[in-house]
């Protein structure tokens, strides 16, 4: 299960897990989980459209994901963020529905865009996935402090010359890049669970920002590896393992937090 095509699967899925763990951490921190849901799921319309007109699926994903991120970032002020995100998502899903209905012969491909095609990663796809993954990781590393500052203290950040709005837009674009890389591998629906579950679990376990980020990545990797292994064993859908894995880790994290809370206020 570690050779040839399988090796590609493991590499691609690991890159996806690292990026999902990182972007998910900030999506949860910034309260942008709704956008984290909307961008990958809406971007699936781009992939469906691309396959309809015979363009590379990743290009279609990227174009629509970036357009969605720009829409959410540019139109959504703090107060209207959810409404704009919802409208963007609905618009993208509507387009997706049209594209899918026009191309019935691609039903299988559409299914894999939603639920992933983790076993079908070819040698040629590994390099672009790794490249986009590295770009997303670098983008987050470069903006680490402003991302923290604007998430926690938006007004203070403004006073120090860091535009919360610009950082918001930047982060949405990073999510769009991450999405165009991850959706073909794990699918739009799983991308979302892989972003939110590990990040939410990590932050309930530790109060240290750096440790929480590392833990979020580690949990995403653990869920991904476990899910692929179980998938080979049982041939049950991968999504089942990723989804329940995320929820399970979160519940364990919550339990750990419950036990730790009385100490966390006094311990140093």
């Amino acid at each position, binding site marked *: 299960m570690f050779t040839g095509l399988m090796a590609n699967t493991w590499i691609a899925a690991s890159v996806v897990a690292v990026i999902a763990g990182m972007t998910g951490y900030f999506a949860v921190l910034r309260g942008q989980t709704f956008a984290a849901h909307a961008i990958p799921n809406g971007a699936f319309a781009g992939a469906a459209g691309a396959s309809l007109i015979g363009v590379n699926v990743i290009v279609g994903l990227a174009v629509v994901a970036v357009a969605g991120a720009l829409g959410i970032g540019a139109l959504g002020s703090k107060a209207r963020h959810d409404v704009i995100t919802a409208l963007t998502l609905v618009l993208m899903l509507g387009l997706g529905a049209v594209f899918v209905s026009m191309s019935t012969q691609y039903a299988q491909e559409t299914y894999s865009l939603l639920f992933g095609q983790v076993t079908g990663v070819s040698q040629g796809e590994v390099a672009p996935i790794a490249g986009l993954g590295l770009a997303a990781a670098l983008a987050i590393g470069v903006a*680490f*402090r*402003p991302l923290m500052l604007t998430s926690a*203290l938006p007004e203070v950040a403004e006073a120090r010359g860091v535009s919360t709005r610009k950082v918001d837009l930047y982060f949405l674009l990073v999510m769009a890049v991450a999405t165009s890389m991850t959706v073909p591998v794990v699918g739009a629906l799983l991308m979302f669970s892989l972003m939110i579950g590990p990040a939410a679990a990590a932050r309930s376990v530790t109060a240290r920002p750096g440790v929480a980020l590392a833990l979020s990545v580690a949990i995403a990797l653990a869920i991904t590896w476990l899910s692929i292994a179980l998938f080979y064993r049982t041939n049950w859908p991968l999504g089942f393992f990723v989804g329940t894995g995320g929820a399970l880790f979160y519940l364990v994290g919550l339990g750990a937090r419950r036990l730790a809370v009385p100490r966390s206020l006094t311990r140093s």
Partner: protein
Amino acid sequence: MTELLKLDGVGVRLGGRQILDDVRFEVRPGEFSGIIGPNGAGKTTLLRVILGLIPSAAGKITRPPTIGYVPQKLNIDPDVPLRARDVVSLGLDGHRIGFSFPSRKRRDLVEKALADVGAGDYASARVGELSGGQQQRVMVAHALISRPSLLLLDEPLANLDLAIEQEIVTVLAKLAREHEIAVMLSAHDMNPLINVMDRIIYVANGKVATGATDDVVTTEGLSELYGHHVDVLHVHGRVVVVAG
């Protein structure tokens, strides 16, 4: 000594309305100023225009290069993985790109800033789980670690009980004196500040009156500012402003 901050005929318009008009005053290093006024008078607006967060429609502002700012309220979830010391550490260089590596020097600076405001005991607690008063202190430490010459605080005494209120005022007055930091603090009630204020900046009706508290807070002075008669009463050492 030369002035640190100078507002010369500053006016602010928001949403087509004149919020502040012809504001002029100066602040020197180490001075403690109280920005006092009723709800909606324009206290936050005045602080925001000093910070450059909103543009002024008229006049000129001369400001120091670094200004520390503690906003009116913090909205941090209890789950957010940020300890008090992480928030203070962000005050050091959170606006720069990249990430900061832990070091002995950074740790000492952060511990010192927390100790200065009496927040050392909860350095490792999640900020979101701290009480309002504890969060205020952490935010003061966050603002002070960047060594500003001017520190602006928006209603730091709101929602605090009397004992904590006096403690925070004392901490701030001490910082102003010992570190030559000019402190400007907004509040509804001037009474907790009366003993430490070098200057009152009284905001009402879009206008501002400044000077020593006893000169500004008079029945005649405030009546003129409000545009209608108000009485300034002295009751058991407290000053009360009532509509006449």
